[in-house]
């Protein structure tokens, strides 16, 4: 490691900060009741919660991609009055406490909510259903996808799209064959982040969807509940979530270099190989 460029205390503080983030995870791992670990994380309720979490998080990620890609495109490629305001609003769930998100969803899609009452009349009941879980997760995860994709779109720029258009490609062809492939790394890392956020969703789910094994009780809710009676089970399940989170972060990092490549190709002139052996 080369530390010559930095004052030592900066490095020291950085190390303390790193420990602050890592130690709690280590401490938790140390508390795991290893002999009971496998039975604890494979109990019926734990498996139901884990499967539900994976299922709902994947669905929420799919919702985020389907809705978020057009949103990011509109934000990055158009300009209209109030665009800044719209962008701020889209990012709101990032800074909003999830419980607040849950309450907001409740008053929109709940039985007595803004739209929920019409849904109820149609016989569609969202509250207490797995759909409600997916909606809660999508609500908090969507900004991650929109944000990272919009960033990717902006850094790639519109020049390739312009070239594509002058080569005779229609809007849809440009979007499909140029824009989306160019921002694919950004889309993947955005989707991975959204998935991670959805997997960790707790507050909005608890408020909006309730908690019933196999239907709405996702892993974070299960952990929260297990703490009441069986802290060991809670710790073991927490570790599972940590492992999943680490895997997700790893995947997100893996796609970064690709991301950079696309940006380099589009942006600042990169060093080119010398005129080769022709």
């Amino acid at each position, binding site marked *: 490691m080369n530390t010559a460029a930095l004052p030592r205390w900066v490095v020291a503080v950085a190390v303390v900060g790193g420990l602050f983030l890592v130690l709690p995870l280590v401490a938790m791992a140390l508390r795991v009741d290893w002999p009971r670990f496998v039975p604890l994380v494979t109990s019926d309720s734990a498996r139901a919660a884990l499967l539900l979490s994976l299922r709902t998080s994947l669905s929420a990620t799919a919702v985020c991609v389907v809705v978020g890609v057009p949103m990011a495109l509109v934000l990055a490629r158009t300009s209209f009055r109030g665009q800044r305001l719209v962008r701020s609003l889209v990012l709101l769930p990032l800074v909003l406490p999830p419980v607040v998100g849950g309450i907001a969803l409740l008053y929109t899609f709940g039985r007595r909510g803004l739209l929920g009452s019409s849904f109820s009349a149609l016989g569609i009941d969202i509250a207490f259903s797995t759909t409600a879980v997916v909606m809660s997760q999508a609500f908090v995860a969507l900004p991650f996808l929109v944000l990272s994709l919009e960033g990717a779109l902006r850094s790639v720029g519109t020049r390739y799209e312009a070239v594509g258009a*002058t080569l005779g490609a229609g809007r849809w062809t440009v979007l499909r064959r140029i824009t989306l*492939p160019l921002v*694919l790394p950004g889309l993947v890392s955005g989707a991975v982040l959204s998935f991670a956020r959805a997997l960790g969703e707790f507050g909005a789910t608890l408020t909006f969807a309730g908690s019933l094994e196999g239907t709405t009780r996702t892993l974070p809710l299960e952990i929260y509940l297990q703490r009441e009676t069986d802290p060991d089970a809670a710790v073991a399940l927490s570790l599972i979530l940590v492992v999943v989170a680490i895997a997700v972060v790893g995947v997100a990092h893996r796609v970064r270099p690709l991301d950079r490549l*696309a940006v380099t190709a589009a942006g600042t002139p990169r060093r*080119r*190989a*010398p*005129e080769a052996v022709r």
Partner: protein
Amino acid sequence: MVLSFDATLADRDFDVSFELADGETLAVLGPNGAGKSTLLDLLAGLLAPTGGRAALDGSVLFDVGPGRRVLTEPRGRGVSLLAQEALLFPHLSVLENVAFGPRSRGVHRTTARVTALHWLERAGIGDLAGRRPAHLSGGQAQRVAVARALAAGPSLLLLDEPLAALDVSVAPAIRTLLRDVLAERSAIIVTHDPLDAFLLADRVLILDGGRVVESGRTGEVLTRPLTAFGARLAGLNLVPGRRTTSGFVGVNGLHVPLGPPVAQGTDLGLAVRPAQVAVTLQAGLAPGTSCIRAAVDDVEHRGDVVRVHAAGMAADMAPIDVVTLDVVAGAQVFLTIRHADVAVYPVNRPSLPGPVPGAPLTGDRVDP
């Protein structure tokens, strides 16, 4: 005529019109901010004019005015754009890049590939078809870009300084390629380099401040410039002056005897290369030459020559002569030109520029 173009763009103070004949290549020259890129963007459909009309091969590119607003989408214009950077799609192979145009126009994949391969061969890089753009050199990438632009089968090819980003060692080969492929097609090339204009273009359009300041056959414009900018671009001295009974009298006092054809009082310009202006300390009195005395304004080192500015003209000297004659700013020298080296021509075409800025208006005239 294949292209007619007339457009204004209010917020960029752009107002340009010109026409382009079938198979003709037009070079657009001008300083930065003159409106060259605006011109290309308007043609490609990346920018909408506030007024005007353009048609290519009879189909309207845009037609904007009171009560009418036709803007053909870029894809429907039959116009390909080749930019300074190759801008190859990084996620597609070289072959797929070149096949992109035909594919976008609905050509079957196999046919599109054949077309692409044809143009890659034509650009001299058929062997690179399977590569990714990231693994190409700058020159190779630009060759692919040329092939891609042509494979789209454009009625009009736009080139935006296609050689500017290339290494000097690579540019000549690409210039040769362009010369080859532009020979038979309608094209507009924006460039800074008069050499490009000479080698690639039939006609030249000089823009300044969003207006056409000169236009004409390349040889005409670049050997007989009408404006100071045109002259600078062509690497010529332009001495504005008038026809008198005895011939041409420049604003700096330079006198060249002329034959009878031109009427007295006509505005004339005299063009001469800096290399053909001799600097001496004594008046040169040889027959067939003209000479003026002038104070040196500036001495500029340019590699293996020294450029001396005096009396609104530039003269190139060998460094050793500069030392020998002790030519420094403020020194009194004589500038001599041979009549055989100059072109004198009427300049009352579009807009006659005033005297070259900073040029002294007086100088001692020495008739031969």
